[in-house]
């Protein structure tokens, strides 16, 4: 780069994403902390190892094919064929680490600086998506089976949905006018759908439901750690929001030049505006769930997270008070959705992932289609393909596109692939740990007690488990 303004722009952007990646690492720290807190003492170390090892597994596979999927599949199957993306192929020079940008490609100097940090930002989204699933399946899934789901969701299904609906050229954006700026659907709804599919096949933890269907409470071993974990997730979520933006981009569609931050679709927003909305949607979620859960810490914190998730699809454009309201309704309703899933459908989801992420993401995506109806979703890449277009010919955000989009995220790409893989793993007896190990605890043989200097206090649930051990149920 021989001009200082060009160099400043590119190297600032490189540094910007680098910082977001470090911030987003806190999401994973938070998930580990949170899930360990929710787990019972006898499973704590296995839970943290399961969540830790998804980091390298999703990383290598995202390097091998996830990043390429994002670019190559954006048109497939409804708006054209595969797109050539040599910079995302694992054997390509621009995936090769330090690169000065010299070469035949005119964009090489820019991509040489930005490819790694863009890749890493998306990779952190991948860890998050896989990690959301991790909490729902805890305390009975085989660790190796979870690793397969982590790769499936983290390096394939979620990034395929991002190619379709979280990419300015994606066919869902161009044809349906799908809009999901901060990933209500593309990260959270798909993760919630995936989690639901796996836990349906996996079944509940032993003793969770009584012989007459009564729900038994399985207490977290450390509620305080749960709240700290969610605090860390909130913190990392700031980085996630920044990482979803392009910090400096010329958005003037005419002959002029106008630099602004944009959302992932290269449509204008501001870091300031999304900061308003992030905090207000967090606040809406916290306030609503504090009331509906009667101050339950687990649900109040989860509600804060769900508030952000619910407003995320439209937080690039919402008024802060709208973000507050959407966050409050999404999070407040998630509390009831979880109770319905548990009480009526006997779904054992220890962290409430299906409600918080699945429902919150689904709801948020649908709502954004109504509230932002009429806005341009992206600049058109081809003429006349959009179901609904603005007067200027851009694909238009609309309710139908977002309702169908939410369905695709949760059911088509979230539920179906994981359900099929879960059935396959169950067929080969590789999905669930043996009954004896589940009752005794994952850690009991392998790791021992994580608190060897603290006496064990029995909860109301343990006699129930011993009854199961006694009569072989």
């Amino acid at each position, binding site marked *: 780069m*021989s001009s200082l303004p060009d160099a400043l722009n590119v190297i600032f952007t490189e540094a910007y994403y680098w910082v977001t990646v470090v911030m987003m690492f806190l999401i994973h720290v938070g998930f580990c902390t949170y899930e360990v807190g929710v787990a019972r003492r006898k499973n704590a170390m296995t839970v943290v190892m399961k969540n830790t090892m998804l980091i390298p*597994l999703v990383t*290598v*596979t995202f390097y*091998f094919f996830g990043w390429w999927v994002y670019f190559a599949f954006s048109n497939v199957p409804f708006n054209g064929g595969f797109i050539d993306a040599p910079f995302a192929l*694992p*054997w*390509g*020079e621009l*995936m*090769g*680490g*330090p*690169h*000065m*940008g*010299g*070469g035949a490609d005119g964009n*090489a100097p820019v991509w040489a600086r930005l490819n790694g940090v863009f890749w890493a930002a998306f990779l952190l989204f991948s860890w998050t998506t896989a990690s959301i699933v991790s909490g729902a399946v805890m305390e009975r899934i*085989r*660790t*190796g089976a979870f*690793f*397969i789901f982590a790769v499936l969701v983290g390096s394939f299904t979620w990034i395929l949905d991002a190619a379709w609906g979280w990419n300015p050229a994606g066919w869902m954006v161009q044809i349906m006018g799908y809009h999901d700026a901060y990933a209500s659907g593309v990260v959270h709804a798909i993760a919630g759908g995936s989690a639901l599919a796996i836990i349906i096949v996996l079944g509940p933890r032993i003793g969770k439901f009584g012989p007459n269907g009564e729900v038994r409470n399985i207490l977290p071993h450390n509620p305080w750690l749960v709240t700290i974990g969610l605090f860390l997730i909130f913190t990392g979520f700031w980085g996630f929001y920044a990482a979803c933006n392009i910090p400096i981009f010329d958005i003037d569609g005419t002959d002029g030049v106008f630099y602004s931050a944009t959302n992932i679709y290269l449509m204008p927003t501001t870091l300031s505006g999304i900061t308003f909305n992030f905090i207000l949607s967090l606040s809406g979620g916290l306030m609503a769930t504090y009331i509906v859960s009667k101050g339950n810490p687990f649900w109040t914190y989860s509600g804060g997270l769900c508030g952000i998730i619910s407003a995320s699809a439209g937080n690039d454009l919402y008024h802060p008070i709208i973000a507050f309201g959407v966050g409050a309704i999404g999070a407040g309703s998630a509390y009831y959705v979880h109770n319905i899933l548990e009480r009526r459908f006997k779904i054992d989801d220890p962290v409430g992932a299906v409600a918080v992420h699945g429902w919150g993401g689904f709801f948020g995506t649908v709502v954004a289609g109504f509230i932002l109806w009429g806005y341009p979703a992206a600049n058109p890449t081809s003429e006349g393909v959009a179901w609904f277009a603005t007067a200027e010919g851009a694909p238009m955000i609309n309710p139908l596109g977002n309702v169908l989009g939410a369905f695709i995220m949760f059911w088509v790409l979230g539920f179906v692939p994981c359900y099929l893989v879960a059935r396959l793993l169950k067929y080969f007896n*590789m999905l669930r*740990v*043996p*009954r*004896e*190990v589940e*009752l*005794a605890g994952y850690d*009991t*043989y*392998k790791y*021992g*007690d994580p608190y*060897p200097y603290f006496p*064990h206090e029995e909860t109301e649930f*343990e006699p129930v*488990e*011993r009854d199961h*051990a*006694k009569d072989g149920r």
Partner: protein
Amino acid sequence: MLISTVFGTGLTTFNNPSTIGPLYPGVGVEWLLVIIVFVAWLAWHIYQLRDETKQLKKEAEHFQKLGLEKVMNRKPHRDTMQ
């Protein structure tokens, strides 16, 4: 010598950087690195699943031998570990 022939960059100066592309060793044989690590990744999963199957079987038998209820009483702790 072989390593430097296959993986050498040929770079002896960083002057005139606008003409320089990749800085990493191994330009032209990235495909080989990808194949090696791809196979290692698949092998890792296969090994992990097989090892886990054996380990879980062993644990289940151990708990049966000790008596599951005794293990669940958590006393004495050390007997239950490997």
